């Protein structure tokens, strides 16, 4: 038992370090970039004194180290500064957008899991047949459609058939007369295109991983023994084999968190979903350094929480994983990019 807590402490320390390093380097990178927020605001027509006043207000006139130190001290008290672009507290903005991204990512993950895992079990437990070949071909096709392509394709389909709304998170209709249920279903309706676009490649990845793990496990002697004992096939599949085959799947979830966040960026840009990705994009373009740093902090928090959760699940399923740091899921490279 003494191993597990030590391992957990290390992972937690890594998570904290990740958030600090990522948001700090985002701030420094954005600050070092040529131009600043004022050049975006005023163009060339503004007077020098007005620009200087604006810079002083934004804290851009001070040396990098002083500015960074002040930001870091404030950040430790959860004060992420004020967005220079939106003129609102960064923390508030980021929380709002992070929620939208989380909604998108969690929905996509749920769709991918609910479809991908059963399909993987089906494909992996058959040695031949149309079903196996069909699922496999579909997965390889979907794996070849990164979320940049799925979102563009779905947008075209939705726009041409006019079946689903595209763009934004809700309809621009006036709110009066709408119950909260109506507005909730409106958001859910708008969520379909981005969530499916984000889910499809992940679903294919989960299906392939699950199918491979399943096929692997079914070749093991304990399965043969169960068959020899006369256990019903469904029981062998879902009680015995699935339990063992779940490990590579859980291992890959830690990496999927990263690819969901990466994928959600482009899905948000294509479908105009108001999430963290769009916010970061706008902040980078406008050189809004505090917003860039805040967004980076939120993103890395996502990643840290996701990988930590996946690791915890892994250890709960198989305590050996705590010792085996080098344990790596197959196909991990694919999920990471």
């Amino acid at each position, binding site marked *: 038992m003494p191993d597990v807590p030590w391992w957990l402490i290390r992972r937690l320390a890594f998570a904290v370090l990740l958030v600090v390093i990522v948001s700090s380097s985002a701030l420094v990178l954005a600050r070092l970039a040529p131009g600043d927020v004022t050049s975006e605001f005023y163009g060339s027509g503004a007077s020098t004194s007005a620009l200087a006043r604006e810079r002083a207000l934004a804290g851009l006139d001070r040396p990098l180290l002083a500015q960074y130190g002040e930001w870091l001290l404030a950040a430790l008290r959860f004060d992420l500064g004020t967005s220079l672009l939106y003129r609102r507290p960064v923390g508030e903005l980021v929380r709002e957008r992070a929620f939208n991204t989380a909604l998108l990512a969690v929905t996509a993950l749920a769709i991918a899991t609910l479809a991908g895992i059963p399909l993987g079990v089906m494909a992996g437990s058959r040695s031949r047949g149309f079903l196996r070949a069909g699922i496999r071909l579909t997965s390889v096709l979907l794996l070849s459609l990164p979320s*940049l*392509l799925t979102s563009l394709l779905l947008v075209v389909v939705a726009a041409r058939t006019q079946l689903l709304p595209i763009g934004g998170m809700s309809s621009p209709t006036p709110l009066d007369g709408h119950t909260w249920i109506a507005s909730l279903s409106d958001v859910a309706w708008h969520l379909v295109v981005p969530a499916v676009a984000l889910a499809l490649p992940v679903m294919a990845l989960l299906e392939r991983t699950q199918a491979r793990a399943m096929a692997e496990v079914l070749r093991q002697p304990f399965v043969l023994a169960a068959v020899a004992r006369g256990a019903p096939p469904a029981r062998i599949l879902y009680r015995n084999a699935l339990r063992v085959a779940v490990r590579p799947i859980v291992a890959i979830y830690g990496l999927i968190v*990263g690819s969901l966040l*990466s994928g959600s960026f482009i899905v948000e840009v294509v479908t105009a979903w108001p999430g963290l990705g769009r916010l970061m994009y706008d902040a980078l373009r406008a050189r809004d350094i505090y917003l860039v740093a805040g967004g980076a902090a939120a993103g890395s928090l996502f990643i840290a929480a996701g990988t930590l959760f996946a690791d915890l699940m892994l250890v709960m399923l198989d305590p050996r994983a705590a010792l085996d740091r080098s344990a*790596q899921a197959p196909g991990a490279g694919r999920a990471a*990019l």
Partner: protein
Amino acid sequence: MRSIGAALLAAIAIAALAGPVLAPYDRSQQFRDQLFAPPMRIRFFDEAGQPRAPFVYRWRLVDRLERRYEEDRAQPLTLEWFSGGRLLQAPGGVPLLLFGADSFGRDQLTRWLWGARTSLAVALLATAGALLVGTVIGGIAGLASEALPSFDEGLMRITELVLVLPAIYVMLALRAALPLVLPPTAIFLLLVVILTLVGWPHIARGVRAIVIVEVREEYAIAAHALGATRTRVLFRHLLPAAGGFLRGQAVIVLPAFIVAEATLSYVGFGFPDTVPSWGTMLQEASNITTLAQFPWLLSPAVGIFLVVFGANLLLETRETR
């Protein structure tokens, strides 16, 4: 399946290499009266159903506002082969638009072929870069794992850090840290460097694992005993053992880089519009209404799909064996 994948990738590579000959026009040629013209169909049978040499109908603009075109059926235009140093041309200077035209009236097929050159060149160079950086760092870490465990540990921590970060944000942040407007060659090199920086960690991890195993093998010990230096053992004896792994990684990383370039250019952080790449072509598709009306703007998406699909077919067979 494996051979299909290889054939697909080879076909695209040939199309890219032969692009200047295959493309009907110059990269920047515009047809002002053909904005958003749909793809032309090559026909083999005339109105009466009689077979004849491959021909097309020219587009006649029927609605300038909605950009609607109709085929001019009165005049079949027999295609000209190998005229003026190009594979295929329409007679009499009529624009031949097999993939349609974009908002500037540029031939999409021409841009597609030149775009393939740009996108593939960036991805290939970055793949080479990522393999090189990954192999060197992984190899050094693997060798150091016994003599200098803390050095190895440090390298692996850095690797892990880069690995967990969502690649697209790292690329965006790195790109945004430099001036947005740069000459095309500078952007080309910059993209290669950025892709290399996000691509190496996974390779480094794999190479390190292989080196750690191989360095304990007898042949490596023998080479060391015969007086070979550490570097020589690493490069002459250990790294060849990672060859299969590196080939597999190349097939994973190359399509990912193609997608990454397309994403960056799509959001305006990559090449400018004057340099055709699959990403800058997709930029034309960034307006949802335009895209819905002129879906052939997605032709670069087909190119991206084909590359990733070809690579996945190669991988799929490799992994199930």
